[in-house]
């Protein structure tokens, strides 16, 4: 059987969200939230590049509000979502929106460049329908991340043994790896592991963080 696009009754009845569009509003908020979780803290500046349908209709659909709300850590059903631009301003988060003319890989695509001090992160996300999303690029790494299942994102130094160490921790905890993507900027630089697992287990997060040569670990349950 080919992989199912929808596996849960709550993909169909749900999500609870602030209108008006599951792809332009709820999906956008989810992308923002994922970016915030990967970054791990509130950024100082955010440049948001909008493509195609996102570029044409972002104001009418509240895509801008939703992306920023997500970056502030809000869920798609947060009643404060409508005030997110104001809240961002009050919290000292500088936001710039840039609607782009050129074609993109997907009609609902956004690229976000965020900074805090010396830290920088670039993420590209797509909103694929019904509030479901895909992260397709992270700091120049091509990837495909849907976050429909429990997922670990590990950013680490590209040194020998990292995959073995992380997978050993998962194995010790009895967590089965469903899929695993490993990629890197260039030899010896920063690398990233995206591990989709079968069991919901957040407790190994701290153990992975405690390993040498780890920059950042995120978990999406």
């Amino acid at each position, binding site marked *: 059987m080919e992989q199912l696009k929808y596996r*849960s009754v709550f993909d169909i009845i749900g999500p609870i*969200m602030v*209108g008006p569009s*599951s792809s332009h509003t709820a999906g956008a908020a989810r992308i923002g939230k994922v970016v915030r979780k990967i970054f791990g803290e509130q950024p100082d500046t955010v440049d948001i590049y909008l493509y195609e349908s996102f570029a044409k209709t972002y104001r009418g659909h*509240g895509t801008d509000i939703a992306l920023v709300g997500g970056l502030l850590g809000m869920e798609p*059903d947060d009643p404060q979502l409508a005030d997110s631009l104001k809240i961002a301003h009050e919290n000292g988060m500088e936001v710039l929106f840039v609607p782009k003319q050129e074609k993109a890989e997907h009609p609902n695509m956004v690229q976000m460049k965020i900074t805090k001090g010396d830290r920088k992160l670039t993420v590209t996300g797509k909103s694929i329908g019904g509030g479901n999303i895909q992260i397709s690029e992270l700091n120049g790494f091509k990837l495909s991340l849907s976050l429909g299942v429990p997922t670990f994102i590990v950013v680490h130094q590209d040194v020998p043994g990292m995959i073995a160490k992380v997978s050993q921790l998962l194995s010790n905890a009895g967590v089965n790896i469903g899929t695993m993507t490993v990629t890197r900027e260039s030899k010896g630089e920063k690398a990233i592991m995206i591990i989709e697992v079968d069991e919901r287990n957040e407790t190994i997060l701290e153990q992975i963080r405690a390993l040498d040569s780890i920059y950042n670990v995120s978990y999406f349950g």
Partner: protein
Amino acid sequence: MFFSIEELVQQSHEYPSVAELMIATEIEMSGRTREQIIVLMERNLQVMERSVEEGVAGVTSVTGLTGGDSPKMNAYIEAGDFLSGETILMAVRNAIAVNEVNAKMGLICATPTAGSAGVVPGVLMACREKLTMSRQQQLDFLFTAGAFGLVMANNASISGAEGGCQAEVGSASAMASAALVAAKGGNAHQSAQAVAITLKNMMGLICDPVAGLVEVPCVKRNALGSSQAFISADMALAGIESVIPPDEVVEAMYQVGRQMPATFRETAEGGLAVTPTAKRLTEKILAKQS
């Protein structure tokens, strides 16, 4: 898990109802407990109820394009002098309410999408009065709708950008008709027939939103989609069968969506979106925004 409507109907024979099959499948697929699943669905139902109440009381969208039609329909029903039935008109009023709330960036439950969020709650809030449904029966209505919706989503599409409005309001209306049949005491086979009857009438419906916004014609298509769910359900309960089996109808809808030019798939480049009035409204909205 069921991968076709035929499998759904067959597997449901091992359970008291399609709703129970859906709950058992959800437990198996998600690892959540029955209690957790019921709590999540109850939360969805409460949001649906609040969105209907809010819309019937009267709202206006961010752009001003839509809003205020639900109170009009409410007053018309209360006056008591109408052509069609009261339950259908209540569903229409409720569906308009939810989509008007959606258009003003209010809180809704996507069923299966935000653009088609009026149909299933609109129908449920109307038929629960007529059929005096218990809370559990109302939740079962949503599980039944979700079960048929899952098959359509996996074998065709629930995205207007992929398959046009037939994929959104068409799927929503089909889901509601299947759940109505079950709520009225029909069997799973009859629910499946209602899905086929509904989708056949929605087939080819394009997605042509004015200014690219989920307002015109979405609100009214939700209204009509909810009314149609009742007629399809009654036809199926009367024993009328679809000549083309439900799974073949779903496959046909998928193929129609694939063959549909991009003009008619949520790009606002065709249909109602390019009428002179729509163009004028689009310019006005864009001018207001910049």
